[in-house]
């Protein structure tokens, strides 16, 4: 029989996740978990619903950026004007997940820990330099988002650990981010390729920092450091964009399936990186 508990503190949740051993699962929005349970792909003896823990539902300004509870819904992110103004790419990526109904429940914590290579919000969080707080039996630790997912359906979380919240840093005064994905429809689909770009300009309009991350083109979302490096020190002109796009393509190791061949996904990753960089550039310029 499946147990259900709704702790109201992080410490209570940590205890509940260790019993019954070994298969109590974290429930946030449930938009992946309940489908997996119903299909029999996932066996669980217990569910620990984290949505009654205030920390996991809070969204507040902190250190010039934002702290976002792991169970805050996509709809709530989309309604937060200040968050959207500072990190439009992150919010757009989160809001691309599923339908309006799914947005009412789906969360950043769930999108990350479900560990799909195609999760839309994950490249955007990585490009933004987001960190997450993980709580568990041995206390709390804070890690960069890119260290959490280790493979399809696999994370670096130890048994009993869960993501409490995300810290999005302050965006640079002349910084901008953008996320683009390719799907063969206009809505309600899973990324065939996803790319996020976050870049910063100086007063002369030269790029001083850039982070690019790709999704759905490798077993996990990837930070492509070489792509960021190829933009730094440039005016993000055509030559710099071409070098960046080549670096993005070099980082791709996609699957080959009916939704996109290896060649297609690799090519499109470069194209989307170029387009996302132009959007991020416009946003960085508009912030001054």
């Amino acid at each position, binding site marked *: *029989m*499946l*147990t*259900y508990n*709704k702790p109201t503190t992080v410490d209570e949740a940590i205890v509940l996740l260790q019993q019954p051993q070994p298969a109590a699962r974290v*429930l946030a929005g*449930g*938009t992946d978990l*309940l*489908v997996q*349970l*119903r*299909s029999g792909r996932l066996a669980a003896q217990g*569910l620990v*619903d984290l*949505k009654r823990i205030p920390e996991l539902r809070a969204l507040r300004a902190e250190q010039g950026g934002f702290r976002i509870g792991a169970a805050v*819904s996509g*709809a709530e992110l989309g309604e937060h004007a200040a968050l959207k103004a500072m990190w439009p790419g992150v919010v757009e990526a989160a809001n691309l997940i*599923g*339908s*309006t*109904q*799914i947005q*009412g*429940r789906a969360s950043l914590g769930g999108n990350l820990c479900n560990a799909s290579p195609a999760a839309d919000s994950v490249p955007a969080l990585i490009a933004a330099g987001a960190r997450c707080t993980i709580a568990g039996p041995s206390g709390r630790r804070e890690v960069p988002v890119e260290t959490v997912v280790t493979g399809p359906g696999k994370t670096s979380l130890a048994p009993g650990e869960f993501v409490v919240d995300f810290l999005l840093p302050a965006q640079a005064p002349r910084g901008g981010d953008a996320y683009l994905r390719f799907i063969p429809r*206009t*809505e*309600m689909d899973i990324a065939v390729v996803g790319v996020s770009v976050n870049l910063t300009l100086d007063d002369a309009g030269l790029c001083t920092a850039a982070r690019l991350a790709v999704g759905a083109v490798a077993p996990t979302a990837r930070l492509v450091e070489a792509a960021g490096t190829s933009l730094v020190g440039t005016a993000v002109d055509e030559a710099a964009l071409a070098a960046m796009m080549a670096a993005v393509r070099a980082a791709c190791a996609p699957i080959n399936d009916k939704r996109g061949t290896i060649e297609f996904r690799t090519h499109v990753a470069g194209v989307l990186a170029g387009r996302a960089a132009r959007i991020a550039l416009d946003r960085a310029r508009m912030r001054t």
Partner: protein
Amino acid sequence: MSKHHISTTINGEPVEFLCDTAQTLLDVLRDELGLTGSKEGCGSGDCGACSVRVEGRLVCACLVLAAEVDGCEVETIEGVAQGNVLHPLQQVFLDEAALQCGICTPGIIVAAKALLEKNLDPTEEEIRFWLAGNLCRCTGYDKIVRAVQKAASVMRSA
């Protein structure tokens, strides 16, 4: 294990029920409470036929555990009409025949009502994106979109 005792408010009325963890909100609405207006299409959050609102948020009742709604406000299609007076969306859907088999209609009405409460003058594109998670295999959507636009105009002039 004993069942969960859940106290909730459904369409403004206090409701208590017992459920197992594995029962979804949709299971309880339909099978325990007799509220069969919400339909089960896919059971995986893709079709929107089970659209309801929990704490005002539009969700798929098939992807919510009944145990999760303890202390929450739930609104279903049964709460959309005021007694015998249909909501403008319901009246316009009838007048304009914006349905054929009708299975998707309760979910679409609930979803469209949530949209019109946020935005009483949505564009066609906004309506189509908002309702992208409500599948209709009969109408081709045009009549649905036009009915939502007309209901919005009725509500604006009310």
